[in-house]
C-alpha cells in the first residue's frame, strides 16, 4: 500500500546549512509526532512534505506522487505552519472560504465547508469577526481550520497548540486524535512532549537533519540498551522486596529512597522485572510502581545529547 508520506533519501540544504540529510522513512496513516531540538530540521521536513520546497537530493512523495511541482497532490495536503499569515481585513470565515475557492470550489460549497471547519476548531462564534482582531489562540485555530477545510488526507501541523489556553489545547488534541481515527495521516511537530504523548505513541525524532528514531515510544525505549529501565517501587516491606530483586541477574542496581518506603531499581529486562515484582508484590505490600524513564521526555533526553 502506498504510504501517505514517504521520504526517499531526501536531502535539503540552504547554502552551507544542512536542513535534512539523507532521510528515508515511510509514514502510515494515523497520528505521528515529529520531534527534535531547535534547528534539527523539523521545519524543513514539513516544508518538503507540504511541497513548499524541493529536496536537493532524493524524493519526497505523498501518496506516491512527488510533493513538489504538483498542484493536484497539494489538494490532498493541509499545512498549518508555525508562522502567521496576513489576513487582517477579512473575517475568519472569509479567509477560509477564499482559500477553498482557490482550490477550485464554488462559492456556496466553499462557504459551507469553511463554516464546518471553523466549527470544528471552535471558532464558530467569532468566525465573522475581522481576523486582524483575533487573539493569538484564535489565529492559531484559524490556521488549523484552513488546513482541514478541504478535507485533505495528509495533515502537517507545526506547533498546533501554540498560544492556546488549556481548554482549547485539550480540544485540539482530541481533534488530532479524531482525525487520526478517521484514517487521515497527521504529522504533528511540537516541543511540548507531554502533549504529543497525549495525541499519539508514534514518533519520528530528528536531530541535526537526520532521523534518530522512528516508531512507537515504547519500542524505541526498549531498544535503548545503554539506558537500563529505572523502576520505582513503594512497598511496606521495602527491604524484603529489595532482597528478592537483588538476586535477579538483570537488575543492575538497587537504591533506597530516604523515607524508607521506596526502592528504585535499574534493570535491563523490564518485563522480567515486573514479573518478579508481581510474584512478591502481594507479600511485600507493594502499593505503587512505575518506570521513571519510560515516557517521551526520557526517550528524548536519552537520544538527544545536550
Amino acid at each position: 500500500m502506498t504510504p501517505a508520506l514517504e521520504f526517499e533519501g531526501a536531502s535539503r540544504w540552504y547554502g552551507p546549512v544542512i536542513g535534512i540529510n539523507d532521510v528515508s522513512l515511510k509514514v502510515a496513516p494515523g497520528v505521528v509526532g515529529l520531534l527534535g531540538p531547535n534547528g534539527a530540521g523539523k521545519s524543513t521536513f514539513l516544508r518538503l512534505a507540504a511541497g513548499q520546497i524541493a529536496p536537493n537530493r532524493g524524493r519526497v512523495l505523498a501518496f506516491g506522487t512527488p510533493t513538489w511541482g504538483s498542484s493536484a497532490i497539494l489538494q490532498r495536503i493541509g499545512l498549518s505552519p508555525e508562522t502567521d499569515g496576513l489576513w487582517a481585513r477579512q473575517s475568519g470565515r472569509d479567509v477560509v472560504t477564499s482559500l477553498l475557492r482557490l482550490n477550485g470550489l464554488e462559492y456556496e460549497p466553499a462557504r459551507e465547508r469553511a463554516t464546518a471547519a471553523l466549527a470544528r476548531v471552535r471558532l464558530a462564534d467569532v468566525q465573522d469577526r475581522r481576523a486582524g482582531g483575533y487573539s493569538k489562540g484564535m489565529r492559531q485555530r484559524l490556521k488549523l481550520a484552513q488546513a482541514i477545510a478541504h478535507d485533505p488526507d495528509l495533515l502537517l501541523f507545526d506547533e498546533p497548540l501554540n498560544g492556546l489556553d488549556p481548554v482549547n489545547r485539550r480540544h485540539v488534541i482530541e481533534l488530532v486524535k479524531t482525525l487520526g481515527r478517521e484514517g487521515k495521516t497527521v504529522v504533528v511537530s511540537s516541543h511540548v512532549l507531554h502533549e504529543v504523548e497525549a495525541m499519539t505513541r508514534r514518533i519520528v525524532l530528528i536531530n541535526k537533519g537526520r532521523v534518530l528514531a522512528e516508531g512507537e515510544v515504547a519500542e524505541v525505549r526498549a531498544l535503548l540498551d545503554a539506558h537500563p529501565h529505572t523502576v520505582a517501587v513503594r512497598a511496606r516491606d521495602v527491604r524484603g522486596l529489595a532482597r528478592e530483586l537483588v538476586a535477579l541477574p538483570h537488575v543492575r542496581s538497587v537504591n533506597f529512597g530516604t523515607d524508607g518506603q521506596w526502592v528504585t531499581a535499574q534493570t535491563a529486562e523490564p518485563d522480567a522485572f515486573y514479573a518478579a515484582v508481581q510474584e512478591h508484590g502481594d507479600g511485600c505490600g507493594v502499593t505503587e510502581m512505575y518506570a521513571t524513564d519510560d515516557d517521551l521526555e526520557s526517550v528524548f533526553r536519552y537520544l538527544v545529547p545536550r
Partner: protein
Amino acid sequence: MTNADSPLLHLEDLTVAYGPLVALDGISARVAPGAVGLLGPNGAGKTTLLRTLLGFVRPRSGRVSVLGLDPAQDPLAVRRRLGYMPEADAYIAGLHASGFVAYAGELAGLDPSEATSRAHEVLDYVGLGEARYRAVEGFSTGMRQRVKLAQALVHDPDLLLLDEPTSGLDPAGRDEMLDLLQDIAARLSVHLVLSTHLLPDVERVCDSVLVVDEGRVKAQGPLAELVTQRRSAYDVSVRGDIGAFLTDLHDEGGEGRDHDGVLRVVLPEGWGPERLFTLAKSSGALVRSLRPAVETLEDVFLRAVEK
C-alpha cells in the same frame, strides 16, 4: 519584605473595566507567598489582572495589594520590587547581553557600577556566561528567554512575574528554564507569578494556583489541596489478558475501565493495592505500573472553567 503570614497578593472586590467592558468583576483572592500559577483562557481577565498588578491599569473599585503595596496608589514602588519577564521579544538594539542587563538594572535604580556587577552575576546564574559579550539580536530563542529572565532578576526583585517563560523552547530548553524557576522559587525565596497555558509547567514549579475566567476567580488555593486523590482508585497498566484481569476484578467486587491503554481501577472493599498483583498473576496478566489515581491540574482547570 513580606513575612510568612502576609499574602503575596490580596485582591478585595476588585473590579477593573475598560469603558463599558468589565474585565475583572469584583474578584477576591488571597494568594500565599511562594510560587503561584496564574491560569485562565485568553481574554478572560488574566492579562488585565497582570496589568493591574504592574500598576498599568487602575481599578474602578475594590482593592489590590502586591507584597503589601498598592499598585494603584504607587505603581513605581511596586515595580521597584517586581521583575517582569514578558512573553514577547524584548531587548535593546545594539547592546550586548551584559550591557543590556546592566542597563535594565540602572533603569530600576541601581547605580552603574552595581548594575554591571549584578548583571554579570545574573547572566552567570541563567547560564549565559559564555555569551555575555554578544549582541542580543544574534541570540537563539532559548538564549533570548534567558536574557529576559536575567533582566527581570538583575535588581533583586521580591516577586517575579513571568509570562509564558517556556514559549518557543525545545524540550531541553524548557527543562532548563523550569529548573531555573524551581531554583529561584525554592532556594532563593523569590516569589513567582507564573502566567502560562502549559499546566505541567505549573505543576512542576508552583505551590498554588489562581484560575481566572470570565472576569472571576474560578479556583484558587494550594495545588496539594485542589488536586484530590480518590481513595482506592488506581491507574494500572497491564500487559497480557486485560479482559480476564478486568473480569476477575469485577468478580471480586471492584471496578475497572480502560482509558487508552491504562486501566482506571477502583479496588474492591477492604483490598489493598498489593492484591492486584496476585489477581493479575491468576488472570494471566502482567502488571507494569501501579499508581494512585490523582486528578491532574488539567482536570481541576477544566472543571473550574466549565462552571
